[in-house]
C-alpha cells in the first residue's frame, strides 16, 4: 500500500514540477537573476496554499499531527544552503528537479545527477571528520514558528492560535505570488 502511494505521489510530484516549469534550468537561472519571477510565484503560492490547508485541516483533526516533521535548525543548515546555492545558480537544478528533468529527457540533468551522487559520497566520507565541528551547532533545535506537534516540537509563538499565525503567513505568501510581475516566455 505504501509502495503504491509512493508511485502515485512521486509520479504526481514529478508531473507537477515539470508542468510548473521547475525542471527547466532556464527558468530557475532567470529567476535567480531576478529576470523572470514565474517560478518564484509558483513556489510562493504552493507554499502558502499548502500551508493554509495543512493548518486548517490539522486544526480540524483531519490531518494527523504525527505527520508533521520539523527538521533541526543548526548552523550547517545555512552553510549547506549556501553551498547548494552556488550549484543551484550555475546548474539551474536542485535535487528534485534534476530527477524530473532527466525523466523529461534533459541530458544535462543526468550529468547533474552523477555529480550529485559523487557529492553525496564525498559528504558521507567527510561526515565522520566534521560531525563534532561548529557546523552542527544547534540553533534552537527542531523548532517551528507556530505550534505543530506539541509532543515532539517546540514553537516560537505559543500563545496565539497556530492556524491564525500560519494562516496570515500563508496568505502573505500567496499575496506576494499574485503581485510579483508575471514571467515572460523565455
Amino acid at each position, binding site marked *: 500500500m505504501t*509502495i503504491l*502511494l*509512493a*508511485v502515485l*505521489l*512521486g*509520479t*504526481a510530484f*514529478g508531473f*507537477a514540477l*515539470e508542468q510548473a516549469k*521547475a*525542471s527547466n534550468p532556464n527558468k530557475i537561472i*532567470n529567476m*535567480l*537573476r531576478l529576470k523572470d519571477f514565474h517560478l518564484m510565484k*509558483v513556489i510562493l*503560492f504552493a*507554499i502558502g*496554499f*499548502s*500551508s493554509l490547508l495543512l493548518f486548517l*485541516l490539522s486544526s480540524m483533526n483531519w490531518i494527523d499531527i504525527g505527520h508533521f*516533521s*520539523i527538521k533541526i*535548525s543548526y548552523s550547517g*543548515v*545555512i*552553510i*549547506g544552503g549556501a*553551498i*547548494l*546555492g*552556488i550549484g*543551484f*545558480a*550555475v546548474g*539551474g537544478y*536542485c*535535487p528534485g528537479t*534534476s*530527477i524530473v528533468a532527466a*525523466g523529461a*529527457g534533459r*541530458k544535462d540533468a543526468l*550529468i*547533474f*545527477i552523477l*555529480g550529485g551522487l*559523487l*557529492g*553525496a559520497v564525498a*559528504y*558521507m566520507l567527510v561526515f565522520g571528520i566534521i560531525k563534532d565541528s561548529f*557546523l552542527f551547532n544547534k540553533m*534552537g533545535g527542531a523548532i517551528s*514558528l507556530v505550534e505543530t506537534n506539541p509532543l515532539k516540537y517546540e514553537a516560537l509563538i505559543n500563545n496565539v492560535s497556530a492556524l491564525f499565525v500560519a494562516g496570515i503567513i500563508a496568505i502573505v505568501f500567496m499575496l506576494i505570488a*499574485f503581485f510579483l510581475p*508575471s514571467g515572460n*516566455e523565455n
Partner: protein
Amino acid sequence: MLKNGIQIIMPLRIFLYFCAFQNNKTSEMNKDLSWLKGGLLLGIVFLTAIWMVKPIGVSTQFVIVDGIVWKIFSKELIQHNQNAEPEYSSTNAYLNKNNGKYASGIANPVNYGFIFVLSMILGGFLSSRFSKKKIQQKDKISPKVWRDKFGENHNKRLVYTFVAGFLVLFGARLAGGCTSGHMMSGMMQTSVSGYLFATGVFATAIPIAIIFFKPKK
C-alpha cells in the same frame, strides 16, 4: 477607504483569476496564469503527501543510491543485527547516524522514500509527453541563458553541471535537506529550518547567477 478598496478588489481579483483559469479559450489570460496552475498543482501534491504519508523530501535518496552501489563493492558496509537495536548499522559514520536509518534504507531500498523519488522520473516523462510545447533538442543540454553567455560549447556546460550537482548534493546533505524537504515542506509547516535554509540558498544563488550569467558587452 483604501482598506475597503483592497477588501473589495482582492476577492474579485482572485475570482477573476479562477474564472480565467477555467476558461481555456482565453489563451492570453492563460499564459499569464500558468504560474497559478503550477502552484496549485504543486501545493496539492505537497499537502496530499503530508496528509497521507509524510512531508516530501528528495536528497536523502542520493545517499541511498550511493550506498546501494557502495555495498556491491564492500560487503561489510551494512550489518544486519538480528533481534537487536538498531536492526541495521554501518561502518560509515553517516550511514550509521539516527540508529542506522540510512543503513536500513540501503538494505531495503523498496521503501516509500526511494520509490517516491524513482517515480518522479516517470512523472517528468509523462508531463513532457503531455505538453504541447516540446523541449528543443539543444535545450536538452544547455539552456538558452547558458548558450547566450557561453555559446554552443556543450562540453563546458556538462563539466559545470557535474560540479554544480556535486555542490548541490554536498550542501543538501550538510543542511539535512534540499529545496523540497527544507524549503517547501519545511516552510509549509512553519519550520524555522526552512527559513534558515532559504536564506542560505538565496544569499549565494542570486548574486552568483547574476554575475555568472551577466551578458557580454
